[in-house]
């Protein structure tokens, strides 16, 4: 079935662009970058059609990557380079390559005037490669390879404008925070190997039923730590909002549609563990809902349009984890899909707005763009209604499925979720009103984006409108996930929809009917407003409790003490001594080759003598 | 043991003498043929005075060369100056010794091959000898202590090294197919009609062409005769040489021509094998040819324009007819036919050499080098790879 072609194509694109891109004209770079991704999308489609209905996971073995110990004994580790496609992977493959292709096409328009053009697309292709390895890998370790790879690419792309301090800082932040998560993931993998003697999904996971719940809970929580890092959940979500320093297509592709959902994929992949460890699942649900609520509230008070959507992403990811935690894996993955559509659309639309306003990101300087850039406006409206959970658009279905499951799990989570849904509708509407309606507050001359940018927007728009009832993901994934007994409870649906509508209504009231009402409210509720405006002071908290001590420790102990004192001292000492010796030996260097030859000859004679009389020649 | 040993020695000596004698006359007459052919290409009679149609011209040349004053310029490096021509002719003749002209023949008590000796590395031997041949020219050029000669020597040594590569690669391809290095076995593997020859059956057209081109360069023939380009270097490496020493360079060149032609015949054209089997009447081709020429000569003899021809034409016509008759004697056919085919093929290639000389202009030196390094060498390499691939597939 040649699964390997799927990731290899973007890798080839990366190599070509990375090596020769500097000399290529932009058109050629575009052809290579977009072409490779689109090709791999087509290959995915072809493969899935060929595989038909994936009742059984389709496994392909390429080569044995790591092997240690002897077969049979418990310490025997064998990691194969295998690729596996089951229905879960299929869903993610389609999302990653499909949305990826659209965003690549969009980026050719968005980045047209940026420097480092070929570099950008090389990184983007590399990201696609690692993301595909992540979803295709048939073992935790291979998944981890992709996991780290996408982390690397995210770092590179966040810091794409490496001449801007905040960009590089954001990159470092993302990288370091992710390390914490990866640490948890690595520990989880050790535990999995220790208990199940294998890292392959097909071998390890079925054994989960046999292990004790305690072990499973620990594994599950450690996995969740990893997921928290990658998918920006409490307490490790802080990197994602800063990650918006990267170019907007990157925010759309990596930090909304694909990479951040890797945690959801990983937890959904190891659903068996959570199924047998309800405690861990509960923790996930709580983390999820807490993140969702907190991020949503922060989103209300942000003025940078991308920041709003960044926090919205965090919050939506929270929803997904609620789904995972309350056993509705299908619903969680479904939300991944729909979210990929509408959040990518929101970001790309925001990018189109920013593009139209020559880089303006502050919503307070926007407004009245509805007439100026209609296509962007209408496409973003699709995303708006989708994320606000208005039936029958995509967001409604997935979010509703999650909430229903959450209600089964515990009503409290459901109610917070509903409130969050309201808040979500509110801040998205706020963003839309501030951006597109009212009077122009900025002094720009907006211009509609080129077709290469708005056509992907349109496609995504259609998808986010219809995605919900077109792809019934939970139905498709029913076999591979543990069953959940769903109860048709119309009231829940009405409530959540009502919340959404209410949120939009409030936003309309505050920003359309009575502009300025927002400020008065902010003035009235000074403390809470400041709190959420400053993102609950989480960054400051981390800075005070973790960053500063670490930095101080490194500076005093490691740098001044170990590095400068011990290591440099040793090295310099060695250097000095060898220089002294050399100054003596230098006298041999007469520069006369024949004298060297004489020395060599003397050595030969000596050697023969020694060997001869020690009997080495007999 | 000793009896066989002695007979071996004696037979070898006899063979050596025979081959040497034949070769020397061939060299002399090859010169005549060349002059004649070029003359007719340029629509002029060529040598005509000495003997009928200048048939005795070579003899006259030999006498002239021997009787000329043999002067050694005072400023040359004596040793190498004298050694060079000797070296050249020796290396040229050396490779003849492994070239087989035909199958086993039985002369009285001894049965032996029509070949001085068969090495199982015959091809390598020929290559080695030809690669040594360069020293003669290079040394001649250097020892003459004359800048034209030096340039000639430099050119020829560089040129020979450069063209040795494509030549070796071109040789390697048919060797891969025949899977042997012994020239005798090489021919044996091509038996049974021209569709078994390496040129046709092996599909070695490319390497054949490369081999011929490289052969022109190895023998310093037009269009690669840079080392003796008159209009640039007077006479190149043998400017300072006269009489027999000049003659030996001369002979060396022609001997090399014969060697490479014979090699081409053996490697690509199936050596002494008839182009199609005897049962389809290949044995009647030589007599027919000779008979035809005999009759033509007789016919011309009837209305000859010059009075000489009244005698010579019929005489030669009769000789030819006799030869044709000899070809029909069964007991000699066994060795005469193979010999005929071998000589015919070699002669054809030699004719190409002469023809080219009469036709093509000379290369410029940088063109020469660029041609081999950028043209011949890659093509030969590619051809070798493809051949190896095909052979590997076939043996699978």
């Amino acid at each position, binding site marked *: 079935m040649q699964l390997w072609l799927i990731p290899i194509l973007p890798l080839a694109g990366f190599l070509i662009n990375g090596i020769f891109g500097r000399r290529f004209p932009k058109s050629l770079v575009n052809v290579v970058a977009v072409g490779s991704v689109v090709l791999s999308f087509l290959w995915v489609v072809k493969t899935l059609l060929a595989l038909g209905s994936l009742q059984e996971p389709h496994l392909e073995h390429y080569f044995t990557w790591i092997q240690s110990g002897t077969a049979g004994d418990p310490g025997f580790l064998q990691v194969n380079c295998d690729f596996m496609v089951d229905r879960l992977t299929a869903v993610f493959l389609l999302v990653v390559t499909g949305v990826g292709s659209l965003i690549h096409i969009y980026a050719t328009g968005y980045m047209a005037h940026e420097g480092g053009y070929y570099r950008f697309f090389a990184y983007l292709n590399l990201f696609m490669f690692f993301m595909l390895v992540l979803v295709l890998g048939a073992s935790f370790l291979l998944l981890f390879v992709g996991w780290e790879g996408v982390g690397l690419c995210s770092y590179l792309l966040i810091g794409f404008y490496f001449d801007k301090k905040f960009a590089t800082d954001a990159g470092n932040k993302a990288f370091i925070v992710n390390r914490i998560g990866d640490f948890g993931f690595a520990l989880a993998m050790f535990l999995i190997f220790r208990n199940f003697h294998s890292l392959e999904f097909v071998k390890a996971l079925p054994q989960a039923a046999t292990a004790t719940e305690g072990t499973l809970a620990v594994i599950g929580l450690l996995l969740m730590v990893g997921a928290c890092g990658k998918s920006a959940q409490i307490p490790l979500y802080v990197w994602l909002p800063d990650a918006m320093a990267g170019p907007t297509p990157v925010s759309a592709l990596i930090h909304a549609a694909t990479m951040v959902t890797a945690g959801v994929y990983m937890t959904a992949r190891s659903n068996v563990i959570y199924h047998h460890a309800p405690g861990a699942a509960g923790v996930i649900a709580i983390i999820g809902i807490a993140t969702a609520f907190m991020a949503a509230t922060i989103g209300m008070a942000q003025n940078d349009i991308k920041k709003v959507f960044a926090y919205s992403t965090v919050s939506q990811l929270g929803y997904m984890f609620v789904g995972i935690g309350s056993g509705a894996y299908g619903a969680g993955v479904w939300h991944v899909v729909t979210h990929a559509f509408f959040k990518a659309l929101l970001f790309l639309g925001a990018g189109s707005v920013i593009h139209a306003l020559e880089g303006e990101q502050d919503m307070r300087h926007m407004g009245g763009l509805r007439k100026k850039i209609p296509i962007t406006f209408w496409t973003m409206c699709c995303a708006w209604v989708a994320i606000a959970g208005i039936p029958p658009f995509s967001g409604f279905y997935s979010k509703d499925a999650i909430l229903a499951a959450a209600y089964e799990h515990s009503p409290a989570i459901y109610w917070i979720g509903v409130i969050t849904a309201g808040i979500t509708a509110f801040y998205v509407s706020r963003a839309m009103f501030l951006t597109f309606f009212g009077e122009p507050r900025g002094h720009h001359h907006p211009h509609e984006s080129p077709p290469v940018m708005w056509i992907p927007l349109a496609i995504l728009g259609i998808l986010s409108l219809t995605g919900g009832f077109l792809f019934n993901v939970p139905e498709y994934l029913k076999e591979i996930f543990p069953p959940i007994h769903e109860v048709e409870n119309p009231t829940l649906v009405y409530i959540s929809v009502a919340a959404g509508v209410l949120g939009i209504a409030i936003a309309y009231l505050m920003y359309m009917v009575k502009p300025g009402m927002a400020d008065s409210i902010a003035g009235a509720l000074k403390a809470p407003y400041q709190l959420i405006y400053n993102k609950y002071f989480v960054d400051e908290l981390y800075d005070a409790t973790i960053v500063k001590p670490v930095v101080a420790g490194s500076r005093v102990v490691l740098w001044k003490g170990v590095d400068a004192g011990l290591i440099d001292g040793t090295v310099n000492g060695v250097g000095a001594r060898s220089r002294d010796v050399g100054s003596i030996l230098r006298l041999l260097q007469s520069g006369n080759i024949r004298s060297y030859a004489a020395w060599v000859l003397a050595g030969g004679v000596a050697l023969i003598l020694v060997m001869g009389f020690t009997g080495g020649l007999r | 043991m000793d009896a066989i040993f002695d007979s071996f020695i004696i037979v070898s000596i006899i063979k050596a003498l025979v081959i040497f004698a034949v070769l020397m006359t061939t060299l002399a007459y090859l010169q005549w043929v060349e002059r004649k052919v070029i003359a007719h290409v340029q629509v002029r009679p060529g040598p005509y005075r000495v003997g009928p149609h200048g048939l005795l011209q070579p003899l006259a040349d030999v006498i002239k060369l021997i009787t000329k004053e043999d002067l050694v310029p005072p400023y040359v490096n004596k040793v190498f100056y004298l050694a060079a021509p000797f070296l050249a002719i020796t290396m040229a003749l050396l490779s003849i010794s492994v070239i087989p002209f035909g199958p086993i023949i039985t002369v009285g008590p001894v049965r032996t091959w029509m070949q001085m000796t068969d090495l199982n590395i015959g091809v*390598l031997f020929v290559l080695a000898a030809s690669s040594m041949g360069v020293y003669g020219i290079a040394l001649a050029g250097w020892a003459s202590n004359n800048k034209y000669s030096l340039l000639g020597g430099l050119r020829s040594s560089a040129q020979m*090294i450069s063209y040795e590569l494509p030549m070796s690669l071109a040789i390697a391809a048919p060797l891969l197919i025949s899977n042997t290095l012994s020239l005798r076995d090489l021919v044996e593997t091509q038996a049974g009609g021209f569709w078994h020859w390496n040129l046709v059956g092996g599909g070695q057209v490319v390497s054949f062409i490369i081999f011929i081109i490289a052969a022109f360069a190895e023998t310093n023939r037009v269009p690669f005769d840079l080392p003796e380009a008159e209009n640039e270097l007077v006479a190149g490496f043998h400017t300072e040489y006269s009489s027999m020493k000049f003659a030996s360079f001369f002979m060396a060149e022609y001997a090399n021509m014969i060697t490479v032609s014979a090699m081409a015949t053996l490697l690509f054209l199936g050596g002494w094998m008839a182009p199609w089997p005897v049962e389809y009447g290949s044995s009647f081709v030589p007599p027919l040819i000779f008979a035809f020429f005999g009759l033509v000569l007789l016919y011309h003899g009837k209305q000859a324009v010059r009075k000489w021809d009244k005698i010579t034409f019929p005489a030669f016509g009769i000789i030819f007819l006799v030869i044709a008759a000899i070809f029909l004697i069964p007991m000699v056919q066994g060795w005469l036919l193979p010999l005929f085919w071998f000589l015919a093929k070699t002669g054809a290639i030699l004719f190409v050499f002469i023809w080219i000389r009469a036709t093509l202009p000379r290369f410029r030196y940088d063109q020469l080098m660029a041609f081999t390094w950028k043209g011949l060498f890659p093509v030969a390499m590619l051809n070798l790879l493809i051949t190896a691939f095909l052979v590997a597939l076939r043996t699978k």
Partner: protein
Amino acid sequence: MDVILFLVFALIAVACAINVVVQTHPISSAISLVGVMGSLAILYLLLGAEFIAAAQVIVYAGAIMVLFVFVIMLLNAGAESRKGRSYTVQLIGVPLLIAFLGLLAFFVQGMSGRETVVFGGFQKGSPRDIGQALFTTYLLPFEVTSLLILIAIVGAIVLARKEID
């Protein structure tokens, strides 16, 4: 027969080798070196190393030494100047050399007992056998040498090219 051949060509080899060292003009040395190589080729044949003998003539005598001769002619290198030669190296070298040769000969005599070389006593030297070994046992070295040659070509070109400026 063997003995005669060996003695003849061994003597030629030694004579030529001495000539290589004593001749003041490089080209004389070069030609004598070719002589050494030729006679060594014959000795290889006696030892049953047909392929190596051929390779010796083709590669060493036919290519490498031609290159030497070519360079000597190109530089038109004259005879060695006798002026300003330092005898120090000779003073150290001669005794060392004598000791070296003596020891080597002594140990060699001691090592290989009474074994003798008879022509045809060794059959594994044919090109086929060499090729077999070359492409099975010695495949890696073979590839590595091919790489080495590539490097050498590039290096030689880089060194000898005219400075374009």
